Structure formats: C-alpha cells, structure tokens
C-alpha cells in the first residue's frame, strides 16, 4: 500500500475517493410494550422491508450497497485454552481452580442491543443522511413509511424531528470504518447504473449486428447511440435496486 493510502486511513477514515462508508450502531430501547420488546418490533420491521427496486434504500440517492441488522450481543469465542500462562498454571498446579478460572478474561456482554446500519455510497455524509431523511419511503400494506419507522425504537430518537437533528443523531452513533474497501468505482450511482445498462445493451448490439458491412454497422451503431443516449444519465438506464437486465 502506498504511503498516502496508509495515511488516508487515519486522515479520512471513511472514504475511498468519492465513495464513503457509513456504519452506525444505534442502541435500541430496553422496553417491552404489550409483551413485545422494542428489539423484536425493530427486527421485524427490518425483515419486512421490501427489496430490490422496492427497497427504501433504492430511493435514497447514491446508495451502492447497504444493510440493516440487529446486533444482539458480542460474539463469544470460548475459553482461551491455548494461553501460555494458563498452560503454565496447569503444569504447576500451585493455584486453586478458583484462582485459575478467575485469571481468565471476563466474558463481555452488551448493555443493550443495537440497530446496525452499514452503507457504501457516493458523495459526502451530510448529503447522504439528508437524502435518507427526505427520500426513504416504502409502502407497508397501504401505509407509507418513512425513515423514522425503522429507527423510532432507538434510544433518544424521539429528539429527532428534522433532517438536521437526524444527521447529528446518526453521526453520534457512527463508528469509523478504518479499512474501507469499495467494491465498485466511486462514480455517482446514476453513472454506475448507466454504465451497467450500456454494457448490457452493447453486448446485445454486438451480438445482433455481427457480420454486417462497415456501412450497415455504422448505421446500426448510430441508431443504437440514439437509443441508449450514453451521455444522458437520466435517459434510458437501469433503476436503483435493479438486479436483472
């Protein structure tokens, strides 16, 4: 890795060119209403989010890839049996069982469960979070849901009333992504979707027109360009969330 790349991990921890990584851990209220916990309600709302083109994340501008899940607890990796000190005490046996077990690391537990949101997107964080507040919407059996429906059971989310309070809430919950790897280019989503569309259409064009004379091919190519409009990002293209041609 080049020196500047290494340095950037520390200077700009959540960026890779024009791509940004966001990870937030929002604590969920430890509350039960009518026999249902806030965690279970939030989990079910996440699981029932529509996917692909219907996903609310397809409406949030510039989302490359995002996921929501509940972090129930930290992962427990069993007793550190290979620890050299532990083995040493096994051999000498001069300590009581209680003392030896007491010397093991304590098992960590989370105090609450967390709603984890992780997203890779194009552009800057404030603009992206504003897009989440403004554009996140989906139909839930006839009811329109906005972004609050997923987050409303999180601790202190009741203080969120507008886009700027949403932005500062999410930033308070943000973790740095020090080793961010962006799986695509860092172009805007519109440009990436247009590129995917053009690639698919061009391979169809190549297959459909093989063997034609230079003049006919040029004619067909002109028609193809008129149809696909390569420089028109809002013209024919894939839509966000689309997974098949």
């Amino acid at each position, binding site marked *: 890795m080049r020196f500047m790349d290494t340095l950037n991990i520390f200077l700009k921890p959540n960026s890779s060119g024009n791509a940004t990584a966001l990870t937030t851990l929002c604590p969920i209220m430890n509350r039960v209403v009518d026999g249902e916990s806030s965690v279970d309600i939030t989990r079910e709302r996440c699981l029932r989010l529509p996917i692909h083109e219907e996903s609310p994340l397809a409406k949030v501008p510039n989302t490359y890839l995002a996921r929501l899940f509940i972090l129930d607890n930290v992962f427990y990796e069993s007793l550190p049996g290979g620890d050299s000190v532990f083995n040493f005490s096994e051999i000498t046996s001069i300590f009581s069982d209680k003392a030896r077990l007491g010397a093991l690391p304590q098992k960590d537990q989370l105090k609450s469960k967390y709603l984890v949101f992780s997203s890779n997107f194009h552009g800057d964080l404030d603009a992206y979070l504003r897009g989440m507040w403004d554009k996140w919407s989906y139909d839930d059996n006839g009811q329109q849901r906005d972004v609050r429906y997923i987050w409303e059971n999180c601790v202190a989310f009741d203080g969120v009333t507008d886009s700027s309070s949403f932005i500062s809430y999410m930033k308070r919950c943000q973790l740095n992504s020090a080793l961010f790897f962006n799986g695509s280019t860092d172009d805007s989503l519109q440009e990436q979707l247009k590129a995917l569309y053009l690639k698919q259409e061009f*391979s169809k064009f*190549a*297959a*459909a027109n*093989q*063997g034609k004379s230079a003049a006919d091919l040029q004619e067909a190519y002109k028609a193809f360009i008129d149809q696909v409009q390569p420089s028109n990002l809002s013209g024919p293209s894939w839509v966000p969330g689309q997974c098949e041609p």
Partner: protein
Amino acid sequence: MTQNLDLTDIQGNIVKAYGSFGFFKARYLFLRVDNGDKGRDFVARITSKVTSAERWSKSSAPSVTTNMAFTYSGLEALELPTASLIGFPEDFVMGMSKRKVILGDDGPSDPEHWDKIWQEESVHIWISINGKSIEDVEERYQWVSKQIDATGGVSLLKGHRGEDAFGNPSDDLPYQDASILYDENGMPSSKEHFGYTDGIGDPVFEGQTNNEKRVIGRGKLTSEGEWVPLATGEFILGHLDEAMEYPHTAPRPDLLSNNATYMVYRKLHQNVGTFNKFLDEQSKVFPGGKELLAAKFSGRWRDNGAPLVHTPDEASKADWDKKFAAADVPTQKKMLTDFTYNEDIEGAKCPVSAHIRRINPRGSLEYGVKGAFNTPGALVDRRRILRRGLPYGKAKDQTSDDGNHGIIFMVLNADINRQFEFVQQQWINYANDFKLGNDKDVLLGNHSAKCPGKVVFEVEPGSGKPPHFVKNIPRLVETRGGDYFFIPSITALKMIAGGIIDPT
C-alpha cells in the same frame, strides 16, 4: 509411490468404462425393497455375480458384467444401522430431484417431467448389466429376474420412457436399455446423438493403471508441467484425496465405506432436431463453417475428437487427421488428450466456453500467471468427475426432438456436492470462474426461452478480427430422471446382505 488398489474388492464400473472394453450394450434395472430380510437375501444373490475391478486378460474377460448400487432410502430399507445411516452426506440423503435448484433442473428438466419411475420415492437398488451383445445382457437379466422371483422381497420398478420390443413408444418399461451408436455401415462408433465423439478425456487416478501414457492429459498437471494420476480419494472412499485427507463423505464403519464411491445417474434427452436446426442457422453467420462451429461448442471436432486447441482451423485439422490416421493406437490416444490451454489462454483456438474446457480447464484458471497456485490445476483437481454411461434410443428423425434418445450419463466421485454438483452449477450453468459472466455451456446449459443464452468465441488479441457471438441458444439437453447412488465395495455388499454391519 504408486498405490496398489484392492481391485478384487472394488466394483468394476468404478475403475473401468465398460464401453471401451467392448461392452456395447447395457441394461439398467431399478428395484424397490419391500422386505428387509428378503431384500438382503436378494442383495446376497446378486453380489455373487457382481463384477470386480480385477484386471482382465484376453482369456479372463467376461462377456457380461453386473454391478449394484443403492439410494439412501434403499440403504434404509435394507435396514442399515442408524449409526451408519447418519454418516452419509446431505446431497446423497436428499437425492437428485430435491437438488434441482443446484443442478438447474428447471423448465422441461424439472422432476415433474421426469420418467414415471422417478415420480415415486421408492427407487432403492440400481443394477447395471453391461454385455458384449444384447443376448449376453438378456441372459443375465433373466438370471436377475429369477432372483427377484426366488426371494420375493424386492420389486422391479417400471416407468421408463422408451420403445418396447416391438418398437412402440411406452412410458412404462421395466428397464432402461442403452447402447453405443452404430455408423451408417453398421460399425460400432463412439458417437452420441449430436454426432460428437464421446468419452475421451476421463480422469485417471492412482492405482487405476500402470500405463503412464494413459495419464497424459487425463491426470493432474504438476508445476513442472508433467501429468500425474489424481489422488485415488477423489474417486474412491477410504483413500487420500487431493487435500491429503480421507473423504469426509464416508459413513461408518470403515468397512462399509472403504473402496466405495458415489454415483450420479442422469437420463439426459437430446433435442436432436433443435440442435441440427440451431447448428444450421448459426453456421450461416459463422465464418468458419458448420463443423468448426460444432467443434467450438465442444472443444473437439465431431468426426474424430481432435482437440481444437491443436486444430483451430481446416488446415491444421487436415494435418492432424493425416498424422492421426497414420498413428498406432497409443499415439492416437495421446494425440486426443495431450494438451493444455497455456498457448490459448484467450480462447482464440478453443473458446473458454467450450464444453471440454469448462468441465476440465486443465490449469487455465491460472490465466497464464505461472505459479498463481500451488500447481496449475489446483482449482481443477478437486472438481474432476469420472464419466460412465452410454447413449440410449435412436434419433430416427434428425429434424425432430420427439422420441426417446439421449445419454445415460453416470458420474462417479467421492463427493457429489464438491465435484459433480459444483461442475454442473458453476461450470455448466454459470461462467464467473471463466470471466464469462452468466454464459452457460452451449450443449448442456439449462438455456431458457425467457432469457436466451449467448456465448462468445474469442479471437487472437491484436488480430483485428471481431469476436463471434452465438446467441439465442435453445435448450439442447433435458433431464428425464435420475438419482444419487452409493456403490459399495464387494466386502460391504456382503456385509449389507448379511445384516452384519457394525458401526461401533
């Protein structure tokens, strides 16, 4: 050091492709076990005639062979101990029809369209009779029928599609017959219904042969570019595999699984009319002509199996043919298998999508980066499959798909999921490993009308020539039935028959 296998303990069909020993006719029987005790008695009787892998001399070769295998429910019906049954792998326990999503058996290949015999979950035993003549097969079949009658604990299952003895179509035949195809002069050929020469590049594993020449192009590639036999454990349980481990698919006890293997039985109908029409239509727009186009689909020329990588055009093919005609048989075999894709990484000669390159990329997954893996074939050596089987039926009308003709395709491997299912899912019906997106194998892919397939024939970079696209590929092969079977050793057959398997 070369491994010595217990050839008298291993069933013969694992080590030998009977077709290449002059056994041109086969009959496959499927039975249900109705009663454990009587079923085991039946297994004992058949075991007395099961053919081992013992080497044959001219005088010791039999005129007919018999082999036997079981589905998971068959082993249950024969009352194997629970401690043994729970050791079988998930793929084998589920059986082939329930693996349809992995295998791409959809549309016309969906199990709901399979032969009637596969519509019930009662196929327990597979018996294969291979004979030098149909009379030999018939005689052994009559003997098996007698054992069925004598024991009374098993039923021969009907429900194969085909033609009866009078040539009338039937969907309720009591067995599946198969046979090599004969040329227009009535001479035996190694062709299948699309006209390709079949059964050339089967893998070779340690202990199978003492003939080093047979390993060339069929074993595994070393870093030095030499061919050596694959580890026995890729094909036979109880032996070390390419990961230097004993296969994880072996049930307990060792005596049940040692020298056994798993078999995939697939009846594949060939849409001969569609294939011929497709080939004719596509060759009109393909500059190299019809036979080169057919060769580009498979990676070998149809007439004699010449590998495209050595015969990329008419001129080189003509030279190769001359040498081939003048060569002795061992040299001919070497000419058919001795090649890699190292000089053709781009696929300009043999397309990356060609059938034989997909199922055995021969080190080309290093993409020309020497030393990318421990050995050039590291990604291939764990995905090899032994192919057995013969064509069935006759394609009487070359312009029609109707009728019953295709291939009884049998795969032998130690791990159905890691080997056969992987090849089928990733290399036949998908091509990400070959950097070809979701293009499918032209001949075997599950192409659909909704999303018609395409493949690309690459050209030499910098040649100024355009690549060639083959588009709107129809489904050329349809699955008509099959299942997953366990082929035990002869020792294990005796133990199953005796009800004396002790997994403790």
